[in-house]
C-alpha cells in the first residue's frame, strides 16, 4: 500500500510555475530518491508535502488522508517528518537538548505538570529515549557540547537525530549528503540504511549521485517543475548522457585568490580557496550545495570580508575594500535569485547598475542597445510576478553589465529557468565574452553549461575544483 501519494500537485508563485501537475507515490518501507537539476522544484515539492506550502492544485495523500495545506506541526505529529537543507539546528542548545526537542510529541508537558513536576516519569523516559537516539547516531559522547560548535559531520548526524527522535513513519531528507566528504557520505549512507531497517520510509532529495544510486530502490526525476522520468537507478542512468569539461590555455590572471578563508561567527564557510581567473577567460565554479560557491563570490565582491588570505584584482589587493569600491575597480556580481529591485522600473534598475558612471550620452546608447538585444521593454515597472524569470535574469545581468565590468560573476543564472531561456542567456553571455566588452565571466551554473555547444571565441578554462568544507 502506498504510504504517500502525490496527486497532480501544481504550485505557482505569482506567474512562476514551480511545480506543474506532478504525481508519484511512495510505498511503505522504501527509500525513494527525488532528483533533478537545481530549480527543478524538489525543495518546493518537499515543502508542499510537509505543509510549509499549500499546493495551488492537487492532493497530497499520506496514510489515506489528504494532508495538503495542513499546518507543518500537524503534519509532523502524524509521523511525516522532514529534515532541512544545510544544517538547521538549535545552535544555542546543547546536543542533548537538540535531540530532546525531537520527541516533542511524545513527551511534551503542559504548564501545570511542568510547575508541579508530575510528569517526571515521562520526562525521564524521554531523556532515556533521547540518549538511545544519540548513541544510535554516534553522538553520545558529545551530548553536552553546543550544537553550533560541533564539526560539520556531527552536525549532520544531529540534524538527523532530531527528526529520528520524533518517531517518524516517513522521513523527508533534504540533501543530507551536501558538502560531505566520501568518508562522511559512506557513514551517512550506512545510517540511512539502518533507518530503513527500523521500518522508516524515506524520501530523499540529493545531488550526490553516488549516494542516490547506492541507496534508492527507485528514483523520481523532476525537471523544471514537471515529472521527467521514474525508474530504477539503472534505468535512469542509462538515460543520462555525461559530458566533461575541457581545459584551455593560460593568459594573464585578472583575479587571484590565495588561501582565502571566510567564517560566519565561529563557523568557517569556506577554507583554503586558491583560484585564478584569466583575463578574457570563462571560469565555472562547481560543487555541491553548501560547498561555499556563493560565499566565494560574495567574498570577492566585498559583501563579506575574508578572515584570512589575499584577493588580488589586476595586481591590487581588494580583500579589505567595501562592495562599492570593488565594483568601481570592475567586478560586477549578479547575485543568486536575481535580486531585482521590484518596485523600480526596468530602466531605473538598469540605471542603478550604472550608478558609478557619469557619462550620460553613452549611457543612453547602452540602454537602447540593451533593450534591443534582450527584448526586455525598458520602461514598464518591474514587478516580480509580471516579468518572467528569464526576463528578470536578463535585467539582472544587464544591470551588472551597465557598470562596464572587467569581471562578471554570475551566481546560478540558470536557476529556475526554462531550457530555451537558459540557452538564450548562455548565447548572450558568450557574445559578451567574445566581442562586446572582453570581460571574464565567472559563474556557478551547474550542469547545463557543460552541455553547451563548444565556445569557440573565448579561451575556456573550467575550474572543476570541489571546494573543500572545513573538517575537524
Amino acid at each position, binding site marked *: 500500500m502506498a504510504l504517500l501519494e502525490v496527486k497532480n500537485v501544481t504550485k505557482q508563485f505569482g506567474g512562476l510555475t514551480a511545480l506543474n501537475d506532478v504525481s508519484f507515490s511512495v510505498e511503505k518501507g522504501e527509500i525513494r530518491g527525488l532528483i533533478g537539476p537545481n530549480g527543478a522544484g524538489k525543495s518546493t515539492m518537499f515543502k508542499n508535502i510537509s505543509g510549509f506550502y499549500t499546493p495551488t492544485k492537487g492532493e497530497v495523500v499520506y496514510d489515506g488522508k489528504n494532508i495538503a495545506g495542513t499546518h507543518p506541526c500537524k503534519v509532523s505529529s502524524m509521523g511525516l517528518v522532514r529534515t532541512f537543507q544545510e544544517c538547521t539546528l*538549535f545552535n544555542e542548545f546543547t546536543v542533548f537538548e537538540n535531540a530532546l526537542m525531537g520527541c516533542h510529541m511524545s513527551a511534551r508537558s503542559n504548564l501545570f505538570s511542568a510547575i508541579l513536576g508530575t510528569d517526571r516519569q515521562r520526562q525521564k523516559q524521554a531523556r532515556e529515549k533521547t540518549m538511545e537516539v544519540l548513541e544510535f547516531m554516534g553522538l553520545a559522547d558529545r551530548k553536552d557540547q553546543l550544537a553550533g560548535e560541533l564539526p560539520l559531520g556531527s552536525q549532520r548526524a544531529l540534524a538527523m537525530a532530531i527528526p529520528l527522535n520524533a518517531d517518524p513513519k516517513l522521513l523527508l531528507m533534504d540533501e543530507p549528503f551536501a558538502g560531505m566528504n566520501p568518508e562522511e557520505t559512506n557513514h551517512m549512507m550506512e545510517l540511512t540504511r539502518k533507518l530503513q531497517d527500523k521500518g522508516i520510509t524515506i524520501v530523499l532529495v540529493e545531488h550526490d549521485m553516488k549516494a542516490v544510486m547506492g541507496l534508492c530502490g527507485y528514483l523520481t526525476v523532476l525537471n523544471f517543475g514537471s515529472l521527467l522520468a521514474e525508474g530504477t537507478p539503472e534505468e535512469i542512468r542509462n538515460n543520462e548522457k555525461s559530458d566533461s569539461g575541457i581545459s584551455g590555455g593560460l593568459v594573464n590572471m585578472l583575479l587571484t585568490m590565495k588561501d582565502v578563508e571566510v567564517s560566519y561567527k565561529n563557523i568557517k564557510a569556506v577554507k583554503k580557496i586558491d583560484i585564478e581567473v584569466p583575463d578574457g577567460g570563462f571560469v565555472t565554479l562547481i560543487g555541491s550545495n553548501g560547498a561555499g560557491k556563493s560565499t566565494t563570490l560574495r567574498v570577492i565582491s566585498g559583501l563579506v570580508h575574508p578572515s584570512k588570505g589575499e584577493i588580488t584584482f589586476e595586481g591590487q589587493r581588494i580583500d579589505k575594500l567595501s562592495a562599492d569600491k570593488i565594483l568601481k575597480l570592475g567586478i560586477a556580481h549578479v547575485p543568486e535569485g536575481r535580486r531585482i529591485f521590484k518596485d523600480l522600473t526596468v530602466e531605473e534598475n538598469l540605471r542603478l547598475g550604472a550608478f558609478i558612471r557619469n557619462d550620460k550620452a553613452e549611457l543612453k546608447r547602452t540602454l537602447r542597445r540593451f533593450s534591443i538585444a534582450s527584448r526586455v521593454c525598458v520602461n514598464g515597472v518591474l514587478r516580480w510576478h509580471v516579468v518572467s524569470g528569464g526576463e528578470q535574469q536578463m535585467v539582472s545581468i544587464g544591470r551588472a553589465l551597465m557598470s562596464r565590468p572587467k569581471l562578471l560573476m554570475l551566481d546560478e543564472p540558470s536557476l529556475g529557468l526554462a531550457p530555451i531561456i537558459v540557452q538564450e542567456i548562455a548565447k548572450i553571455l558568450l557574445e559578451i565574452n567574445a566581442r562586446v566588452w572582453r570581460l571574464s565571466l565567472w559563474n556557478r551554473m551547474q550542469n547545463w553549461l557543460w552541455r553547451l555547444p563548444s565556445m569557440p571565441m573565448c579561451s575556456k578554462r573550467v575550474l572543476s575544483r570541489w571546494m573543500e568544507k572545513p573538517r575537524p
Partner: protein
Amino acid sequence: MTIKNLIICAVILAGLVALPHFLAFNFQDLLIFLAVNVLVVVSYRLVTLTGEWSLIHVVMMGVGAYTSAMLSKMAGFPFWVSMPIAGLTAAGIAALLCFPLFRMTQFYFLIGSFAAGEAIRLVWIYFIDPFGGSSGINNLPAPELGDIDFYEPIPYFYMTLIVVTISLFILYRIETSRVGLTLNAVHWKAPLAESVGVDTWKYRSLALIVGSFFVGIAGALKVHYLGVVTPHQFGIGVMVFVLIWVIVGGYATFVGPIIGVIVLTVFDQFLRASGFVDPSVQPAIYGAVLIISILFMPEGLEALPKRIKARMKGGNA
C-alpha cells in the same frame, strides 16, 4: 535545583527578610516597588523567550491593577481574592489578544502589541465611569489579615516578598522544564521546531498568557500599596523602563533581568542621594545607560564577569 543553589536562595531570602529593618521609611517603600519590578521583568523575560518583543506587558500589568482595584473598591472583594482574579483577567485579555497579535511576528508584532496596549490605555482614559479617566481610581483598600496592618511598609513588603518568591519559583520551574526548552526552540528555529510537531502559535501564546498572569498580579500588588491606580502608571514610558532593566541586565539568563532592575534602582538612588543630578534629568541618564549598554555590552551586566574573565585570560574578548 542543586543544594548549593538552594542555600544561596535561602541566604538571599533571609537577607531580604532582615533588610527593611535597617532602612529608612522611604527606602522601605522602594523595596516594595523593587520586589514588584523584579516580578515584572522576570515575567517579561518569559514572554521574550519565544523571541518576540512585546510592548504590551506593562499595559497587562495595568489590566491586573485595574481589575483588582475595581473588584476591591466597587464590589468589596478582599485583596486575597481580587489579586488572583487580577492575574487571571490579565491572562484572559492576553489570550484574547493572541489571536490578532500572533498572526504577526517581529517588527509587526512589536508595533501591533504597542497599538493594542495604547488602545486599552485610551479606553481607561476615555471611560470615566468605571475607570475614573485620567485621575484613575483612588483610596484603594489595603489587604486585611488578622491584626496585621498592611498600610505599614514592612508587613506589606513581607507579603509582597512571599507572593513574588512563589511567582519566581513557578516561573523558574517553567523555564527549566520541557515547556521552557520548547519556548527557546520556537525562538531559535521556528521551522525546525514545527518539523517535530511543535505548534509555535500555541507556545508563543502560552508565553504571553503566563507572562501576563504574573504581571497582572504584580500590578495588583503595586496599586494596593500606592492606594491609587491611574492610566499613566502603565504608559509606554514605563514599558521602556522595563526594557531598559531587561536589556541592561541581560536577557540570556533567568537572573539577568533581576540584576538589571536591582543595579539600576540602586544606581538611581545613589544618583539622587548624591545630589549631583536633578530628578528631572533621570530619564536622560537612563537613556544614556541604555545606549551605552547596547553599544558596549550587548549581553548585559550578567555577562560582564564572564567577559572580564575572558579578557584576563588574554582571550580575544
